[in-house]
Protein backbone atom coordinates (compact mmCIF):
# COMPACT_ATOMS: atom_id res chain seq x y z
CA UNK A 1 0.00 0.00 0.00
CA UNK A 2 1.52 3.33 -0.95
CA UNK A 3 1.58 6.47 1.15
CA UNK A 4 -1.34 8.05 -0.74
CA UNK A 5 -3.60 5.05 -0.11
CA UNK A 6 -2.69 5.07 3.59
CA UNK A 7 -3.47 8.78 3.76
CA UNK A 8 -6.84 8.22 2.05
CA UNK A 9 -7.67 5.49 4.59
CA UNK A 10 -6.80 7.78 7.51
CA UNK A 11 -8.91 10.62 6.04
CA UNK A 12 -11.93 8.28 5.61
CA UNK A 13 -11.47 7.02 9.19
CA UNK A 14 -11.29 10.53 10.64
CA UNK A 15 -14.29 11.59 8.50
CA UNK A 16 -16.39 8.72 9.82
CA UNK A 17 -15.37 9.52 13.41
CA UNK A 18 -16.36 13.15 12.83
CA UNK A 19 -19.79 12.23 11.42
CA UNK A 20 -20.36 9.82 14.32
CA UNK A 21 -19.30 12.50 16.82
CA UNK A 22 -21.60 15.13 15.22
CA UNK A 23 -24.58 12.71 15.26
CA UNK A 24 -24.13 12.17 19.03
CA UNK A 25 -24.74 15.92 19.49
CA UNK A 26 -28.28 15.51 18.11
CA UNK A 27 -29.68 14.44 21.47
CA UNK A 28 -29.57 10.67 20.90
CA UNK A 29 -29.33 8.87 24.28
CA UNK A 30 -25.98 7.22 25.12
CA UNK A 31 -27.46 3.71 25.36
CA UNK A 32 -28.63 4.02 21.72
CA UNK A 33 -25.52 5.68 20.30
CA UNK A 34 -22.49 6.17 22.53
CA UNK A 35 -20.09 8.96 21.59
CA UNK A 36 -16.59 8.24 20.25
CA UNK A 37 -15.25 9.45 23.60
CA UNK A 38 -17.45 6.99 25.55
CA UNK A 39 -16.37 4.19 23.21
CA UNK A 40 -12.70 5.11 23.66
CA UNK A 41 -13.22 5.06 27.42
CA UNK A 42 -14.79 1.59 27.22
CA UNK A 43 -11.88 0.43 25.08
CA UNK A 44 -9.46 1.55 27.80
CA UNK A 45 -11.33 0.42 30.90
CA UNK A 46 -12.29 -2.98 29.47
CA UNK A 47 -8.97 -3.49 27.68
CA UNK A 48 -8.05 -6.84 29.26
CA UNK A 49 -11.52 -8.30 28.70
CA UNK A 50 -11.65 -7.00 25.11
CA UNK A 51 -8.08 -8.13 24.34
CA UNK A 52 -8.75 -11.68 25.52
CA UNK A 53 -11.95 -11.96 23.49
CA UNK A 54 -10.31 -10.31 20.46
CA UNK A 55 -7.64 -12.99 20.59
CA UNK A 56 -10.32 -15.70 20.49
CA UNK A 57 -12.03 -14.13 17.47
CA UNK A 58 -8.69 -13.52 15.73
CA UNK A 59 -7.71 -17.19 16.16
CA UNK A 60 -11.05 -18.29 14.71
CA UNK A 61 -10.63 -15.94 11.74
CA UNK A 62 -7.05 -17.04 11.01
CA UNK A 63 -7.88 -20.76 11.33
CA UNK A 64 -10.98 -20.31 9.16
CA UNK A 65 -8.99 -18.36 6.59
CA UNK A 66 -6.22 -20.96 6.35
CA UNK A 67 -8.63 -23.90 6.16
CA UNK A 68 -11.08 -22.15 3.83
CA UNK A 69 -8.33 -21.06 1.43
CA UNK A 70 -6.73 -24.53 1.44
CA UNK A 71 -10.08 -26.24 0.85
CA UNK A 72 -11.14 -23.74 -1.83
CA UNK A 73 -7.84 -24.10 -3.70
CA UNK A 74 -7.93 -27.89 -3.45
CA UNK A 75 -11.48 -28.07 -4.84
CA UNK A 76 -10.60 -25.66 -7.70
CA UNK A 77 -7.56 -27.78 -8.58
CA UNK A 78 -9.66 -30.95 -8.52
CA UNK A 79 -12.24 -29.32 -10.79
CA UNK A 80 -9.67 -28.18 -13.34
CA UNK A 81 -7.92 -31.57 -13.37
CA UNK A 82 -11.03 -33.48 -14.44
CA UNK A 83 -14.13 -32.26 -16.29
CA UNK A 84 -16.09 -35.16 -14.76
CA UNK A 85 -15.12 -34.12 -11.23
CA UNK A 86 -15.96 -30.54 -12.13
CA UNK A 87 -19.50 -31.57 -13.07
CA UNK A 88 -19.91 -33.28 -9.67
CA UNK A 89 -18.19 -30.64 -7.55
CA UNK A 90 -19.74 -27.51 -9.08
CA UNK A 91 -23.19 -28.11 -7.47
CA UNK A 92 -21.42 -28.57 -4.13
CA UNK A 93 -19.58 -25.27 -4.53
CA UNK A 94 -22.80 -23.47 -5.48
CA UNK A 95 -24.68 -25.07 -2.57
CA UNK A 96 -22.05 -23.79 -0.14
CA UNK A 97 -22.92 -20.27 -1.30
CA UNK A 98 -26.68 -20.82 -1.53
CA UNK A 99 -27.09 -21.90 2.12
CA UNK A 100 -27.71 -18.79 4.25
CA UNK A 101 -24.95 -18.75 6.88
CA UNK A 102 -27.40 -17.52 9.52
CA UNK A 103 -29.54 -20.61 8.91
CA UNK A 104 -26.68 -23.10 9.17
CA UNK A 105 -24.96 -21.43 12.17
CA UNK A 106 -27.24 -22.91 14.89
CA UNK A 107 -26.86 -26.36 13.34
CA UNK A 108 -23.07 -26.06 13.28
CA UNK A 109 -23.08 -25.05 16.95
CA UNK A 110 -25.35 -28.02 17.67
CA UNK A 111 -23.08 -30.43 15.81
CA UNK A 112 -19.67 -29.03 16.76
CA UNK A 113 -20.41 -27.53 20.19
CA UNK A 114 -19.82 -24.08 21.71
CA UNK A 115 -16.05 -24.24 21.13
CA UNK A 116 -13.90 -22.85 18.37
CA UNK A 117 -14.69 -25.45 15.68
CA UNK A 118 -18.20 -24.18 14.86
CA UNK A 119 -16.90 -20.62 14.36
CA UNK A 120 -13.96 -21.79 12.27
CA UNK A 121 -16.37 -23.85 10.19
CA UNK A 122 -18.58 -20.79 9.67
CA UNK A 123 -15.57 -18.79 8.46
CA UNK A 124 -14.57 -21.69 6.18
CA UNK A 125 -18.07 -21.84 4.74
CA UNK A 126 -18.14 -18.13 4.00
CA UNK A 127 -14.63 -18.10 2.47
CA UNK A 128 -14.91 -21.29 0.46
CA UNK A 129 -16.99 -19.91 -2.43
CA UNK A 130 -15.03 -16.75 -3.32
CA UNK A 131 -11.72 -18.63 -3.14
CA UNK A 132 -12.91 -21.64 -5.14
CA UNK A 133 -14.73 -19.71 -7.83
CA UNK A 134 -12.01 -17.08 -8.36
CA UNK A 135 -9.19 -19.64 -8.43
CA UNK A 136 -11.10 -22.02 -10.71
CA UNK A 137 -11.94 -19.13 -13.02
CA UNK A 138 -8.27 -18.15 -13.15
CA UNK A 139 -7.18 -21.73 -13.86
CA UNK A 140 -9.83 -22.11 -16.56
CA UNK A 141 -9.04 -18.81 -18.28
CA UNK A 142 -5.33 -19.52 -18.68
CA UNK A 143 -4.18 -18.13 -22.03
CA UNK A 144 -4.49 -21.02 -24.50
CA UNK A 145 -1.36 -19.84 -26.29
CA UNK A 146 0.70 -20.27 -23.09
CA UNK A 147 -0.55 -23.86 -22.85
CA UNK A 148 0.10 -24.53 -26.56
CA UNK A 149 3.68 -23.35 -26.14
CA UNK A 150 4.12 -25.65 -23.12
CA UNK A 151 2.65 -28.59 -25.07
CA UNK A 152 5.02 -28.09 -28.01
CA UNK A 153 7.86 -28.23 -25.45
CA UNK A 154 6.65 -31.61 -24.24
CA UNK A 155 5.28 -30.46 -20.86
CA UNK A 156 3.16 -33.09 -19.08
CA UNK A 157 -0.34 -32.24 -17.81
CA UNK A 158 1.11 -31.93 -14.29
CA UNK A 159 3.87 -29.58 -15.46
CA UNK A 160 1.34 -27.49 -17.38
CA UNK A 161 -0.77 -27.20 -14.22
CA UNK A 162 2.18 -26.41 -11.94
CA UNK A 163 4.17 -24.07 -14.16
CA UNK A 164 1.51 -22.44 -16.33
CA UNK A 165 -2.09 -22.68 -15.10
CA UNK A 166 -1.28 -22.21 -11.42
CA UNK A 167 0.93 -19.17 -12.06
CA UNK A 168 -1.46 -17.62 -14.58
CA UNK A 169 -4.34 -18.06 -12.08
CA UNK A 170 -2.56 -16.25 -9.23
CA UNK A 171 -4.02 -12.78 -9.98
CA UNK A 172 -7.55 -14.24 -9.99
CA UNK A 173 -6.81 -16.17 -6.78
CA UNK A 174 -5.54 -12.90 -5.33
CA UNK A 175 -8.98 -11.31 -5.84
CA UNK A 176 -10.60 -14.27 -4.08
CA UNK A 177 -8.13 -14.05 -1.18
CA UNK A 178 -8.75 -10.34 -0.71
CA UNK A 179 -12.49 -11.00 -0.61
CA UNK A 180 -11.92 -13.91 1.79
CA UNK A 181 -9.92 -11.66 4.12
CA UNK A 182 -12.77 -9.14 4.13
CA UNK A 183 -15.58 -11.64 4.84
CA UNK A 184 -13.85 -14.16 7.13
CA UNK A 185 -14.60 -12.10 10.28
CA UNK A 186 -18.33 -12.13 9.39
CA UNK A 187 -18.37 -15.94 9.56
CA UNK A 188 -16.62 -16.06 12.92
CA UNK A 189 -18.85 -13.36 14.43
CA UNK A 190 -22.08 -15.04 13.23
CA UNK A 191 -20.85 -18.27 14.82
CA UNK A 192 -20.19 -16.44 18.08
CA UNK A 193 -23.60 -14.78 18.03
CA UNK A 194 -25.37 -18.11 17.74
CA UNK A 195 -23.60 -19.77 20.63
CA UNK A 196 -20.28 -19.09 22.34
CA UNK A 197 -18.61 -18.31 25.62
CA UNK A 198 -15.85 -16.07 24.24
CA UNK A 199 -15.02 -13.80 21.31
CA UNK A 200 -16.02 -10.34 20.13
CA UNK A 201 -19.47 -11.60 18.99
CA UNK A 202 -20.05 -12.91 22.50
CA UNK A 203 -18.92 -9.55 23.96
CA UNK A 204 -21.35 -7.69 21.68
CA UNK A 205 -24.29 -9.92 22.58
CA UNK A 206 -23.55 -9.61 26.32
CA UNK A 207 -23.08 -5.85 26.17
CA UNK A 208 -26.24 -5.46 24.11
CA UNK A 209 -28.31 -7.41 26.62
CA UNK A 210 -26.99 -5.16 29.43
CA UNK A 211 -27.53 -1.95 27.43
CA UNK A 212 -23.72 -1.35 27.48
CA UNK A 213 -23.66 0.20 24.01
CA UNK A 214 -20.19 1.69 24.61
CA UNK A 215 -18.70 -1.81 25.13
CA UNK A 216 -20.65 -3.08 22.11
CA UNK A 217 -19.21 -0.25 19.99
CA UNK A 218 -15.73 -0.86 21.38
CA UNK A 219 -15.96 -4.52 20.30
CA UNK A 220 -17.30 -3.44 16.92
CA UNK A 221 -14.43 -0.97 16.53
CA UNK A 222 -11.88 -3.73 17.24
CA UNK A 223 -13.61 -6.00 14.74
CA UNK A 224 -13.47 -3.34 12.01
CA UNK A 225 -9.82 -2.66 12.82
CA UNK A 226 -9.08 -6.40 12.70
CA UNK A 227 -10.78 -6.77 9.30
CA UNK A 228 -9.00 -3.75 7.83
CA UNK A 229 -5.62 -4.97 9.14
CA UNK A 230 -6.25 -8.45 7.78
CA UNK A 231 -7.18 -7.07 4.36
CA UNK A 232 -4.20 -4.71 4.23
CA UNK A 233 -1.80 -7.51 5.24
CA UNK A 234 -3.28 -9.82 2.61
CA UNK A 235 -3.11 -7.07 -0.01
CA UNK A 236 0.53 -6.29 0.75
CA UNK A 237 1.45 -9.98 0.71
CA UNK A 238 -0.28 -10.50 -2.63
CA UNK A 239 1.28 -7.41 -4.18
CA UNK A 240 4.69 -8.75 -3.25
CA UNK A 241 3.91 -12.28 -4.45
CA UNK A 242 2.21 -11.33 -7.74
CA UNK A 243 4.28 -8.26 -8.56
CA UNK A 244 4.50 -9.30 -12.23
CA UNK A 245 0.77 -8.93 -12.82
CA UNK A 246 -0.83 -5.74 -14.10
CA UNK A 247 -3.89 -6.58 -11.98
CA UNK A 248 -2.07 -6.94 -8.68
Amino acid at each position, binding site marked *: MNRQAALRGIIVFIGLLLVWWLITFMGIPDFLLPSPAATAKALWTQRAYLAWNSLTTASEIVCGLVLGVALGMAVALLMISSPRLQRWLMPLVLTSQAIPVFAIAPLLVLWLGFGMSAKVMMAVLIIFFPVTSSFFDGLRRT*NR*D*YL*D*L*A*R*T*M*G*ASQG*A*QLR*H*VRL*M*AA*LPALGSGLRMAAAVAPIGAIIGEWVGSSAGLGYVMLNANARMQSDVCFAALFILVLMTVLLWVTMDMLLRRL*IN*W*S*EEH
Partner: protein
Amino acid sequence: MKSPAIHVKDLGLRFGEHVVFDKVSFTLPAGKWVSLLGASGVGKTSLIRILAGLMPPTSGTITTSDGKPIAGRLAWMGQKDLLYPWLTIRNNIALSARLTGRRSDHQRVDALLSQVGLEGYGDQRPAALSGGMRQRAALARTLYDDKPIVMMDEPFSALDTITRTRIQALAAELLHDRTVLLVTHDPMEACRLSHQLLVLASASGGIDDSHVLEGAPPRAPNDHYLLHSQAQLLQQLVRANA
Protein backbone atom coordinates in the same frame (compact mmCIF):
# COMPACT_ATOMS: atom_id res chain seq x y z
CA MET B 1 21.34 -31.24 -36.14
CA LYS B 2 19.77 -32.66 -39.31
CA SER B 3 16.53 -30.98 -40.30
CA PRO B 4 13.99 -33.30 -41.92
CA ALA B 5 11.59 -32.57 -44.75
CA ILE B 6 7.91 -32.76 -43.85
CA HIS B 7 5.43 -34.40 -46.22
CA VAL B 8 1.76 -33.50 -45.90
CA LYS B 9 -0.69 -35.68 -47.83
CA ASP B 10 -4.43 -35.21 -48.35
CA LEU B 11 -4.83 -33.22 -45.15
CA GLY B 12 -8.40 -32.23 -44.37
CA LEU B 13 -10.14 -30.35 -41.58
CA ARG B 14 -13.86 -29.97 -41.08
CA PHE B 15 -16.08 -28.88 -38.22
CA GLY B 16 -19.40 -30.67 -38.73
CA GLU B 17 -20.62 -29.66 -42.17
CA HIS B 18 -18.11 -26.82 -42.51
CA VAL B 19 -15.05 -27.78 -44.54
CA VAL B 20 -12.06 -25.63 -43.61
CA PHE B 21 -9.72 -27.31 -46.13
CA ASP B 22 -9.67 -30.64 -47.92
CA LYS B 23 -7.05 -32.86 -49.58
CA VAL B 24 -4.20 -30.44 -49.00
CA SER B 25 -0.82 -31.90 -50.00
CA PHE B 26 2.63 -30.28 -49.97
CA THR B 27 6.19 -30.77 -48.80
CA LEU B 28 8.28 -28.59 -46.52
CA PRO B 29 11.81 -29.14 -47.88
CA ALA B 30 14.53 -30.06 -45.37
CA GLY B 31 16.40 -27.08 -43.92
CA LYS B 32 14.41 -24.54 -45.94
CA TRP B 33 12.14 -21.67 -44.95
CA VAL B 34 8.57 -21.91 -46.30
CA SER B 35 5.89 -19.25 -45.82
CA LEU B 36 2.19 -20.01 -45.78
CA LEU B 37 -0.17 -17.28 -46.95
CA GLY B 38 -3.87 -16.96 -47.68
CA ALA B 39 -6.89 -14.84 -46.97
CA SER B 40 -8.23 -14.56 -43.40
CA GLY B 41 -10.31 -17.56 -42.41
CA VAL B 42 -8.94 -20.08 -44.96
CA GLY B 43 -7.39 -22.13 -42.15
CA LYS B 44 -3.70 -21.12 -42.09
CA THR B 45 -3.53 -21.13 -38.30
CA SER B 46 -5.45 -24.43 -38.12
CA LEU B 47 -3.03 -25.96 -40.65
CA ILE B 48 0.09 -24.94 -38.74
CA ARG B 49 -1.49 -26.03 -35.44
CA ILE B 50 -2.18 -29.46 -36.95
CA LEU B 51 1.43 -29.72 -38.15
CA ALA B 52 2.63 -28.71 -34.66
CA GLY B 53 0.46 -31.43 -33.09
CA LEU B 54 -1.75 -28.92 -31.29
CA MET B 55 -4.96 -30.17 -32.93
CA PRO B 56 -5.87 -33.30 -34.87
CA PRO B 57 -6.79 -33.22 -38.59
CA THR B 58 -10.02 -34.79 -39.84
CA SER B 59 -8.11 -36.71 -42.51
CA GLY B 60 -4.69 -37.04 -44.11
CA THR B 61 -1.16 -37.88 -43.03
CA ILE B 62 1.94 -35.98 -41.96
CA THR B 63 5.30 -37.75 -42.26
CA THR B 64 8.94 -36.73 -42.11
CA SER B 65 11.80 -37.67 -44.44
CA ASP B 66 13.65 -39.48 -41.61
CA GLY B 67 10.54 -41.31 -40.40
CA LYS B 68 10.71 -39.83 -36.88
CA PRO B 69 7.76 -37.91 -35.39
CA ILE B 70 7.63 -34.11 -35.37
CA ALA B 71 6.73 -34.02 -31.66
CA GLY B 72 9.81 -33.40 -29.54
CA ARG B 73 11.71 -31.87 -32.47
CA LEU B 74 9.65 -28.74 -32.82
CA ALA B 75 10.07 -25.14 -31.65
CA TRP B 76 6.93 -22.99 -31.71
CA MET B 77 6.46 -19.24 -31.99
CA GLY B 78 2.91 -17.96 -31.71
CA GLN B 79 1.22 -14.73 -32.79
CA LYS B 80 2.47 -13.01 -29.64
CA ASP B 81 5.81 -13.37 -27.92
CA LEU B 82 4.17 -15.64 -25.29
CA LEU B 83 6.78 -14.81 -22.68
CA TYR B 84 5.40 -15.90 -19.31
CA PRO B 85 5.05 -12.63 -17.35
CA TRP B 86 5.91 -14.28 -14.01
CA LEU B 87 9.32 -15.51 -15.22
CA THR B 88 12.46 -13.50 -15.89
CA ILE B 89 13.74 -13.32 -19.47
CA ARG B 90 16.45 -15.83 -18.54
CA ASN B 91 13.88 -18.32 -17.23
CA ASN B 92 11.63 -17.69 -20.23
CA ILE B 93 14.45 -18.57 -22.60
CA ALA B 94 15.12 -21.81 -20.71
CA LEU B 95 11.38 -22.51 -20.37
CA SER B 96 11.50 -25.97 -21.92
CA ALA B 97 14.00 -27.09 -19.27
CA ARG B 98 11.70 -25.87 -16.49
CA LEU B 99 8.65 -27.53 -18.05
CA THR B 100 10.34 -30.88 -18.53
CA GLY B 101 12.17 -30.96 -15.19
CA ARG B 102 15.69 -30.48 -16.61
CA ARG B 103 18.37 -28.15 -15.27
CA SER B 104 18.66 -24.97 -17.31
CA ASP B 105 21.87 -24.43 -19.20
CA HIS B 106 22.98 -20.98 -17.96
CA GLN B 107 25.86 -20.72 -20.41
CA ARG B 108 23.54 -21.40 -23.34
CA VAL B 109 21.06 -18.81 -22.07
CA ASP B 110 23.88 -16.24 -21.80
CA ALA B 111 25.07 -17.06 -25.32
CA LEU B 112 21.52 -16.72 -26.69
CA LEU B 113 20.95 -13.44 -24.84
CA SER B 114 24.11 -12.15 -26.48
CA GLN B 115 23.09 -13.49 -29.93
CA VAL B 116 19.77 -11.66 -29.85
CA GLY B 117 21.31 -8.51 -28.35
CA LEU B 118 19.70 -8.74 -24.92
CA GLU B 119 22.79 -8.86 -22.70
CA GLY B 120 21.99 -7.33 -19.34
CA TYR B 121 18.26 -7.99 -19.63
CA GLY B 122 18.28 -11.62 -18.45
CA ASP B 123 17.01 -10.83 -14.97
CA GLN B 124 14.26 -8.47 -16.11
CA ARG B 125 10.62 -9.45 -16.36
CA PRO B 126 9.01 -9.29 -19.87
CA ALA B 127 6.90 -6.26 -18.89
CA ALA B 128 10.10 -4.20 -18.61
CA LEU B 129 11.00 -4.83 -22.28
CA SER B 130 9.78 -3.20 -25.50
CA GLY B 131 7.81 -5.20 -28.11
CA GLY B 132 10.89 -5.73 -30.26
CA MET B 133 13.03 -6.86 -27.32
CA ARG B 134 10.32 -9.26 -26.20
CA GLN B 135 10.16 -10.78 -29.67
CA ARG B 136 13.94 -11.18 -29.66
CA ALA B 137 13.65 -12.96 -26.29
CA ALA B 138 10.98 -15.22 -27.83
CA LEU B 139 13.38 -15.97 -30.67
CA ALA B 140 16.08 -16.91 -28.14
CA ARG B 141 13.57 -19.21 -26.42
CA THR B 142 12.84 -20.83 -29.81
CA LEU B 143 16.56 -21.45 -30.28
CA TYR B 144 17.28 -22.73 -26.75
CA ASP B 145 16.64 -26.41 -27.47
CA ASP B 146 18.19 -26.32 -30.93
CA LYS B 147 15.18 -28.01 -32.52
CA PRO B 148 15.43 -28.86 -36.24
CA ILE B 149 11.82 -27.85 -37.02
CA VAL B 150 10.44 -24.37 -36.32
CA MET B 151 6.82 -23.33 -36.79
CA MET B 152 5.80 -19.69 -36.50
CA ASP B 153 2.29 -18.28 -36.64
CA GLU B 154 2.54 -14.59 -37.56
CA PRO B 155 5.23 -13.95 -34.94
CA PHE B 156 6.22 -10.50 -36.17
CA SER B 157 2.80 -9.07 -37.03
CA ALA B 158 2.52 -6.85 -33.94
CA LEU B 159 5.86 -5.09 -34.50
CA ASP B 160 6.50 -1.77 -36.22
CA THR B 161 8.11 -1.88 -39.69
CA ILE B 162 11.67 -1.05 -38.62
CA THR B 163 11.71 -3.50 -35.71
CA ARG B 164 10.05 -6.15 -37.86
CA THR B 165 12.67 -5.80 -40.60
CA ARG B 166 15.50 -6.15 -38.05
CA ILE B 167 13.96 -9.18 -36.35
CA GLN B 168 13.24 -10.85 -39.68
CA ALA B 169 16.93 -10.59 -40.58
CA LEU B 170 17.95 -11.91 -37.17
CA ALA B 171 15.49 -14.81 -37.39
CA ALA B 172 16.65 -15.71 -40.91
CA GLU B 173 20.25 -15.76 -39.73
CA LEU B 174 19.65 -17.75 -36.53
CA LEU B 175 17.16 -20.24 -37.99
CA HIS B 176 19.42 -21.01 -40.96
CA ASP B 177 19.39 -24.72 -41.94
CA ARG B 178 16.20 -25.52 -40.02
CA THR B 179 12.93 -26.63 -41.57
CA VAL B 180 10.80 -23.55 -40.98
CA LEU B 181 7.11 -22.94 -41.65
CA LEU B 182 5.98 -19.33 -41.23
CA VAL B 183 2.35 -18.25 -41.40
CA THR B 184 2.14 -14.64 -42.47
CA HIS B 185 -0.19 -12.06 -43.98
CA ASP B 186 2.69 -9.95 -45.21
CA PRO B 187 3.84 -10.68 -48.82
CA MET B 188 7.03 -8.67 -48.28
CA GLU B 189 7.93 -10.74 -45.20
CA ALA B 190 7.20 -13.98 -47.05
CA CYS B 191 9.29 -13.04 -50.10
CA ARG B 192 12.11 -11.69 -47.98
CA LEU B 193 12.55 -14.74 -45.78
CA SER B 194 11.42 -17.78 -47.76
CA HIS B 195 12.78 -20.37 -50.14
CA GLN B 196 9.24 -21.36 -51.11
CA LEU B 197 5.71 -19.98 -50.73
CA LEU B 198 2.46 -21.84 -50.09
CA VAL B 199 -0.84 -20.14 -50.85
CA LEU B 200 -3.86 -21.70 -49.20
CA ALA B 201 -7.16 -21.09 -50.97
CA SER B 202 -10.67 -21.46 -49.58
CA ALA B 203 -12.12 -24.97 -48.97
CA SER B 204 -12.25 -26.31 -52.53
CA GLY B 205 -9.19 -24.51 -53.87
CA GLY B 206 -6.47 -26.50 -52.11
CA ILE B 207 -2.93 -25.22 -51.82
CA ASP B 208 -0.62 -23.70 -54.41
CA ASP B 209 3.03 -24.67 -53.80
CA SER B 210 4.39 -23.60 -57.18
CA HIS B 211 6.12 -20.40 -56.05
CA VAL B 212 9.78 -21.20 -55.41
CA LEU B 213 12.11 -18.27 -54.76
CA GLU B 214 15.71 -18.13 -55.95
CA GLY B 215 18.68 -17.03 -53.87
CA ALA B 216 19.27 -17.08 -50.16
CA PRO B 217 17.14 -15.24 -47.61
CA PRO B 218 17.03 -12.75 -46.04
CA ARG B 219 16.70 -10.63 -49.17
CA ALA B 220 17.25 -6.88 -48.99
CA PRO B 221 13.96 -4.92 -48.91
CA ASN B 222 14.95 -3.14 -52.16
CA ASP B 223 16.09 -6.34 -53.92
CA HIS B 224 14.70 -6.28 -57.44
CA TYR B 225 13.91 -9.99 -57.36
CA LEU B 226 12.06 -9.60 -54.04
CA LEU B 227 9.85 -6.85 -55.47
CA HIS B 228 9.12 -8.96 -58.55
CA SER B 229 8.26 -12.01 -56.40
CA GLN B 230 6.03 -9.88 -54.23
CA ALA B 231 4.04 -8.72 -57.28
CA GLN B 232 3.69 -12.34 -58.41
CA LEU B 233 2.57 -13.39 -54.95
CA LEU B 234 -0.08 -10.69 -54.82
CA GLN B 235 -1.53 -11.99 -58.11
CA GLN B 236 -1.42 -15.51 -56.69
CA LEU B 237 -3.28 -14.39 -53.55
CA VAL B 238 -5.94 -12.63 -55.63
CA ARG B 239 -6.42 -15.76 -57.76
CA ALA B 240 -6.66 -17.96 -54.63
CA ASN B 241 -9.28 -15.69 -53.16
CA ALA B 242 -11.33 -15.36 -56.35
